[in-house]
């Protein structure tokens, strides 16, 4: 069976005027269908760039980017859901109408999409909040709504760019558990960008480590911690071994 995402030797340069700077290089990893892969590294290591390449927003300058397999065909317009650090909800729309935005843009049948949006809001723990406006929700709840929005058009791939980075530590832990549950129930392939090393190990079935200056890929390993995971796992010695491995790569040990 071929991988769902296949990246090989991916490189991206940005040009600003005459200056060029290397955003990513040597990025090579595969993601299997239904995996949750963490992309971890310091600021400036190009994690977001990799995500934008996967989203089809920027082309890679060199290397191979292939998404989809004969078993799981991939439509670049319909099969990507995105979650960012900020919830980016439209403040003039009710929560349910925010969730429906991708369905509107894709021109999906609205009645079914609305039904699905309702189910998704229940899935992310926001049942009963359909008619609220974003300002009536806390930051964590807004981010849950943003996750529901990323799922509403039933994409095969969810790209998350530090989605819990702006939340307080406790909410963040809670959202980590929620995300694992949502991932199990929705069976999506998720690429999760973070600079939280513990978060990367806790969530990922696999971790890809990127380093900055120069931006390149440093490691790519499978996390063999059992699922479903709970917070207890953080005291597991394997968990400690994985995080130490990343700290070492980032030159922090």
């Amino acid at each position, binding site marked *: 069976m071929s991988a769902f995402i296949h990246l090989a030797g991916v490189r991206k340069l940005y040009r600003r005027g005459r200056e060029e700077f290397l955003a990513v290089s040597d990025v090579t990893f595969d993601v299997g269908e239904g995996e949750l892969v963490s992309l971890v590294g310091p600021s400036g290591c190009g994690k977001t760039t990799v995500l934008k390449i996967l989203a089809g*927003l920027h082309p890679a300058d060199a290397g191979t980017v292939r998404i989809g397999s004969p078993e799981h065909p991939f439509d670049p317009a*319909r099969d*990507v859901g*995105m979650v*960012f650090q*900020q919830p980016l909800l439209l*403040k*003039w729309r009710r929560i349910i109408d925010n969730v429906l935005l991708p369905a509107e*843009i894709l021109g999906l049948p609205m009645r079914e999409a609305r039904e699905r949006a309702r189910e998704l809001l229940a899935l992310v723990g926001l049942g009963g909040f359909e008619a609220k406006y974003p300002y009536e929700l806390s930051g964590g709840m807004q981010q849950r709504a943003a996750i529901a929005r990323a799922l509403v058009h039933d994409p095969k791939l969810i790209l998350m760019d530090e989605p819990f980075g702006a939340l307080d530590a406790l909410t963040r832990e809670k959202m980590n558990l929620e995300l694992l549950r949502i991932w199990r129930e929705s069976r999506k392939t998720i690429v999760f960008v973070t600079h939280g090393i513990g978060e990367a190990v806790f969530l990922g079935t696999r971790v890809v480590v990127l380093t900055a200056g120069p931006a390149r890929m440093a490691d790519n390993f499978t996390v063999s911690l059992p699922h479903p995971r709970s917070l207890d796992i953080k005291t597991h010695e394997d968990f400690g071994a994985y995080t130490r491995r990343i700290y070492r790569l980032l030159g922090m040990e």
Partner: protein
Amino acid sequence: MSGTREAVQRYTIAVLSHLLLVLAWHFFVVLGDVPKIVMPSPWETAKALLVPNYRWIENIAVTAGEIFGGYILAVGSGVVLAMLFSWSRLLEMWLMPLLVSLNMIPKVALGPLIIVWFSYGIGPNILIAFSICFFPIVLTTARGLREVEPDLLDLVRSLHGSRWQIFLKIQLPGALPYIFSGMKVAAVLAVAGAIVGEFLGSDRGLGYLMLQVQVTLDTPAMFMAVILITLIGVVLYGLVLGLERLVLVRDARLG
């Protein structure tokens, strides 16, 4: 609901403060023995409405028509121009600096020219009102249309959304608070523009009437005219506020 009670309380106080001002005016004139020709009492001012020669209704209609006409024209064309700017970067680069310079012209100084070009009357006065409130609308709307989260654009682009969808679903609703704040500024300016037009050359309207009664030193009628002009402005402003309340979610309002 406490929200409604609070609103009622606020409006009651607003009405009371206006009444207090009228009362203070009354006592100032009566107790200070101010001559009517300098400052009439509220009662004498109100009596000016009874002079049939002044044709209040017609003059109110003319002035209100000029104000609303110039205003609606400015809002319509201002918003459209700002939209064109947001679609064409080149157009904005060519026209925006020009608009900023043109905006520095004191529009009042254009009055005599406009009258030379278009003669006097309601049309030229609408034009003056328009020219004075057009710029704030364009500037605020253009600003609002620019304020889009780049990540939100990425989200729509990742779904291969069109330029038009981005505009309709994200840019325009996002710009509405800015458009409304421009409309509020413009409402005040439109009133000033129409009156300046009437001062410079007109044969009808409340501004024209003020010049007429100035000759006969009918101060109460001048006071009345000023009050009526202000009221027209208040009505316009109130309509804009009402529309804003109707269209915008509470959190999306600016200031």
